[in-house]
């Protein structure tokens, strides 16, 4: 039998109303308040072993202490999942549920589930970090909201996949996957319906809501190029011929760095491109067309810039997701910072 622990506020923990909102966290064995319905919903799969109660004001104004105390209370407890709420439309309570769920997930690595109304601040603050079920606006929705949380909880506890946000009733977490429509409606029919609605000025729902694009501000110019240390990076797949880091030819998740210190040169036959998104002939014959080590060394001799970072860095751009690219950049940046690089040349293909 799996073990679950629930967090509730002073009101649902049956301690009191607003006058008790300042109480410090306490932990009780067994089930208090909503924990009893969770126990019923999860029966046969999990037991609710403890209920944690904390005042909303205490959590709001002494957040660090409250979180630390609760994490301490959980130390050594058997726990397969942590639940909080449901918090309905109570603003402070929703933030408390999000805060404690996030902390418990990070510290103990267990899945967390909560519920709040869409009009509350907790939704935007925490929806990317956890499953937040779309809850009602008043406490009379308790049965329904607990049931919705329990449905998702049961799937997670059983190791079953949790369905799409709209189907399961949680707030989308900024994750997009392909899924099979229940009605099996093919793309051509969906296209026709959307087209006719758009033409007639009727409301329609795009299957790809356009997200806000992350724009990176352009760095200030290098003021003294003559003394600047320059590094060379590329997403054009230039690697030693044996591709020692096994960088993928498309949808890359791997990168490598290769020594170009001293009088090292890049020759066809010794280096090549493993990028599968363009005709490789020119780059295989002369890798310098993508990673211009020859030109950079010439310019160095001429004193155009100060010095060259002794490695060039390679990955493949074709099909590579923006999130993987950002991760690889974060892995590469420390090497550049350690060597006090002032500027980078990033070549695509």
């Amino acid at each position, binding site marked *: 039998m799996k073990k679950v622990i629930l967090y509730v506020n002073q009101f649902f923990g049956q301690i009191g109303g607003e006058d008790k909102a300042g109480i410090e966290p306490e932990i009780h064995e067994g089930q208090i308040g909503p924990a009893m319905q969770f126990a019923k919903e999860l029966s046969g799969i999990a037991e609710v072993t403890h209920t944690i109660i904390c005042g909303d004001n205490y959590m709001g104004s002494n957040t660090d202490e409250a979180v630390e105390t609760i994490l301490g209370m959980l130390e050594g407890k058997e726990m397969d999942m942590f639940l909080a709420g449901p918090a309905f439309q109570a603003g402070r309570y929703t933030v408390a549920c999000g805060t404690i769920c996030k902390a418990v997930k990070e510290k103990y690595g267990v899945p967390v589930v909560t519920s709040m109304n869409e009009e509350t601040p907790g939704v935007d603050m925490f929806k990317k970090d956890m499953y937040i079920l779309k809850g009602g606006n008043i406490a009379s929705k308790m049965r329904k909201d607990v049931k919705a949380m329990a449905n998702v909880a049961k799937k997670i506890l059983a190791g079953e996949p*949790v369905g*799409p*946000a*709209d*189907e399961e009733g949680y707030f*989308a*977490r*900024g*994750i*997009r*996957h*392909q*899924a*099979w*429509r229940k009605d*099996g*409606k*093919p*793309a*051509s*029919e*969906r*296209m*026709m319906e*959307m*087209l*006719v609605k*758009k*033409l*007639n000025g009727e409301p*329609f729902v*795009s*299957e*790809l809501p*356009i*997200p806000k*694009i992350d724009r990176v501000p352009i760095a200030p110019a290098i003021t003294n190029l003559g003394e600047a240390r320059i590094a060379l990076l590329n997403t054009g797949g230039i690697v030693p011929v044996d591709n020692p880091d*096994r960088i*993928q*030819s*498309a*949808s890359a998740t791997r990168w490598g760095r290769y020594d170009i210190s001293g009088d090292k040169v890049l020759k066809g036959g010794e280096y090549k491109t493993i990028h*599968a*998104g*363009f*005709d490789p002939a020119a780059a295989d014959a002369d890798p310098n067309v993508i990673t211009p080590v020859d030109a950079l060394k010439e310019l160095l001799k001429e004193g155009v810039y100060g010095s060259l970072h002794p490695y060039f860095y390679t990955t493949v751009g*074709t*099909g590579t*997701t*923006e*999130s*993987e690219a950002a991760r690889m950049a974060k892995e590469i940046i420390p090497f550049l910072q350690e060597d006090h690089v002032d500027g980078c040349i990033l070549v695509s293909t």
Partner: protein
Amino acid sequence: MKLEIGNFYVKDIVFGNELSFKDGILTVEKDEALKFILEDDRITEAELYIAKPGDKIRMCPVKEAIEPRTRLDGRGLFPGYTSELAPAGNGVLHALKNCSVLVVGKHWGGFQDGIIDMSGEGQKLTYFGQLNNIVLVADTNEEFERYEQQKKNDALRRAGHKLAEYIGTCVKELKPEDTDVYETTPMIKRGTEIEKLPSVVYVMQPQSQMEAMGYNDLVYGWDTNHMLPTVMSPTEILDGAIVSGSFMPVSSKWSTYDMQNTPNLRALMDAHGKTINFLGVIMSNLNVALEQKERAALYVAQIAKSLGADGAVVAEEGYGNPDADFVGCLVALEDAGVKTVGVTNESTGRDGHGQPLVTLDEKCDAIVSCGNVGELIELPPMETVLGELQALARDGNSGGWDYDEILGPSVREDGSIILENNGVFCGDQVAGWSPKQMMEF
């Protein structure tokens, strides 16, 4: 223009003494068919198989799919490609439905090839899992590309097209079960009843990214990389004027079968006169240089505007670099006052966190989204493999790999596989079949 397609529904395929079609059973005389295929002296080895829904068969590396058909007037099926150049889009065709000819490499695959499973969890990943397939497994003497990651697959693809035409001849003299009639009238002479409906164009962006010839989709045998957007009749598309190429990660591919049956096109033709006035097709492309993308978008918007289109549907055969063409074209059309719907797939990665398209614009407010090329897929071993499974891991398939420190190789010793959706043959079905949709999790 008027195209009539007489349908012969294939319920079963068997090998027998004579190429024939009777009571839903397609009989193929194997030796004769193989002799026909081996007439191309580039084909060094060939074998035929049958793969039907429910069969415990996995195919890899799959290169092309074609619907077997025949033209009653003797004209070839793919003018400018496997037959003499001639106008397409008029006349009578007989087609074997629920049936395709699949071409599979006996050993060697590449970036652009894929897998098909006929049963189990993988069957639903591609439309071809539900068809009765005649499978040509062959090898060639094309030594120049044997170890190349990008393959033209020229001999094998042509063999598939010719085989589809060869098999189609068995229904030439027979009476079809039913007939689909696709008729278009001149755009400006349709009468007030039709013309009061909102008018719509279908913009096709077929794969044309490769600068070298021999890899891209062909229109009447002409490389789509070398063309500017132009107007075509939907009946030409359904009648073999365009054939698939050999370049893109294969889940994004529109096989020739998809072109011959383009569901989006048929849905628009079906709605013609009811909810829309379907003007026709603007055939564009997906060239890589920015200027070529901008020029194509400019042409598409101008043509749509000149034709008086109120609305447009844009579909792209690819992702990544082609997203720039797709979004650029949608924006150009919206800027020209044409209300536009896009059909595409996405690349949100294995974890689903990635940006869906390489570039985005708020004007793209109506998109049908058919799949995630990076979706990680794990499939159990399959009793029978046609082709060579190692091609998925060894030959640089866009959805496979030979090494990963966490996931291991794509092809495991027990025959189970792990791959990205990228490697599923025509998996994203942007041509309109797709029952898949991108959803928020």
